């Protein structure tokens, strides 16, 4: 199979990930819930993962690294901590439903700093304008999950800091392939999945906390058990119930892989491969490719003139090419990119994707559109 759906989940993982996950299932118990070896060993594994994440994202204390089920879970905590009905919230035009649906559910006053696709200056200018109108919160994705557009989050964070507007960053598509300095950004929260660019198993995610969070879940934490309120300290405040220890054990190995390979190296390799695929697609007749080297990560959208993207996706799937078609849970991004009516096909690569796979994909794609 040629797997080009890493923006959803990286399927090829370092071997150590599955080994650590499998080992944890039968050896590790509940951290903080017992003094016996399986519980204490689980606690050590969980702490090692927090420390690895804190190192990778420049967080000044491992307790600020909170385990979540996925990025959506973390974004919900962050958004529901900082937004209220009627809050003035500025978002980019490239947000996923993981951001827009919680905001919609809260009933906020939503303002979109849209900016043209791949135009970082335009996005920044729109953020500046909307923030200057008055804002209670800003939320911005680091990389569009549809187009791979790298948004200027460092500059947006600077705008937010000077205006004292808390910022939430969705690092779903950037964690593991673009540098992210949490303390340097001064963000209120950064949410990310463990199962994409960090190469952990599904069901893992991280929320980096720069603010005191509100709880989304209440329950047992293995601490201050006499009290009926959740602990006021991290990470316990946000980690009710038993941890996904097996997932965290796998995530730790994923983080070690990313640290060893180097975020910049992985990012450069993925961007180059996406560009190679994009240029190859552009040489095919009837294809519109959303390509912008320099402002694009390893995610690439394209569409075929007068052809349904889902049908092309199906045809590719039948030839063992895995990529994603449709709206990618991000209608706002499609609206901003002008592709809402058609959707797009999306090819997304990982550190394990190869030039050979790209060439095979291009050959198959040529056949698929030729047979239409």
């Amino acid at each position, binding site marked *: 199979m040629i797997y080009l759906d890493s923006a959803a989940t990286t399927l090829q993982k370092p071997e150590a990930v599955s080994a650590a996950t499998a080992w944890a299932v039968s050896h590790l118990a509940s*951290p*903080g819930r*017992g*003094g016996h070896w399986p519980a*204490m060993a689980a*606690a*050590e594994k969980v*702490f090692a993962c*927090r*420390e690895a994440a804190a190192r990778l994202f420049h967080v000044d*204390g*491992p*307790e600020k690294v909170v385990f979540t089920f996925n990025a959506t879970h973390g974004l919900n905590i962050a958004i529901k901590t900082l937004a209220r009905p009627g809050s003035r919230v500025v978002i980019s035009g490239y947000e996923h439903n993981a951001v827009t649906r919680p905001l919609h559910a809260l009933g906020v006053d939503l303002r979109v700093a849209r900016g043209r696709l791949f135009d970082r200056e335009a996005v920044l200018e729109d953020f500046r304008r909307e923030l200057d109108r008055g804002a209670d919160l800003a939320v911005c994705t680091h990389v569009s999950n549809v187009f791979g557009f790298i948004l200027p989050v460092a500059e947006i964070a600077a705008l937010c800091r000077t205006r004292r507007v808390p910022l939430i960053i969705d690092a779903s598509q950037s964690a593991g392939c673009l540098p992210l300095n949490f303390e340097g950004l001064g963000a209120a929260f950064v949410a990310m999945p463990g199962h994409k660019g960090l190469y952990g198993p599904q069901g893992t995610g991280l929320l980096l906390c720069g603010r005191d969070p509100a709880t989304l879940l209440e329950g047992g934490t*293995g*601490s*201050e*058990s*006499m*009290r009926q309120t959740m*602990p006021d*300290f*991290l*990470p*316990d405040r946000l980690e009710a119930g038993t941890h996904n220890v097996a997932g965290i054990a796998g995530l730790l190995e994923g983080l070690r892989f990313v640290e060893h390979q180097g975020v910049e190296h992985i990012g450069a390799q993925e961007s180059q491969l996406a560009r190679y695929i994009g240029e190859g697609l552009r040489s095919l007749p009837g294809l519109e490719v959303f390509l912008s080297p320099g402002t694009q990560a390893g995610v690439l959208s394209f569409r075929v003139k007068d052809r349904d993207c889902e049908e092309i996706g199906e045809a590719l799937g039948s030839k063992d090419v895995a990529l994603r078609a449709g709206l990618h849970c991000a209608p706002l991004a499609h609206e901003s990119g002008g592709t809402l009516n058609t959707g797009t096909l999306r090819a997304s690569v990982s550190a394990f994707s190869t030039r050979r796979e790209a060439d095979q994909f291009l050959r198959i794609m040529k056949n698929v559109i030729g047979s239409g």
Partner: protein
Amino acid sequence: MLYYLIVCRSLTYAQRTAAALERAGITARVIRSPKSISGEGCSHSVKISQRNLPDALRVLQRVGLTPKRVYITAGDGSYQEVAL
């Protein structure tokens, strides 16, 4: 053998405390706090030997991990809080 227990507000703080001490060459072990000293319910402590307390407190102050409470074992198996 006499030893000290540094009571921490969370498992993660206990782990940070133990890691900082170990990095400074002080043997430290995270354990669940005995019920009699656990305060609001379950908590974790870092166990260190009697001779290491002064050095441990210096290390923890340096890294900004000021202990919440410290106890010493008494001969009868009970614990006495140590004034810091």
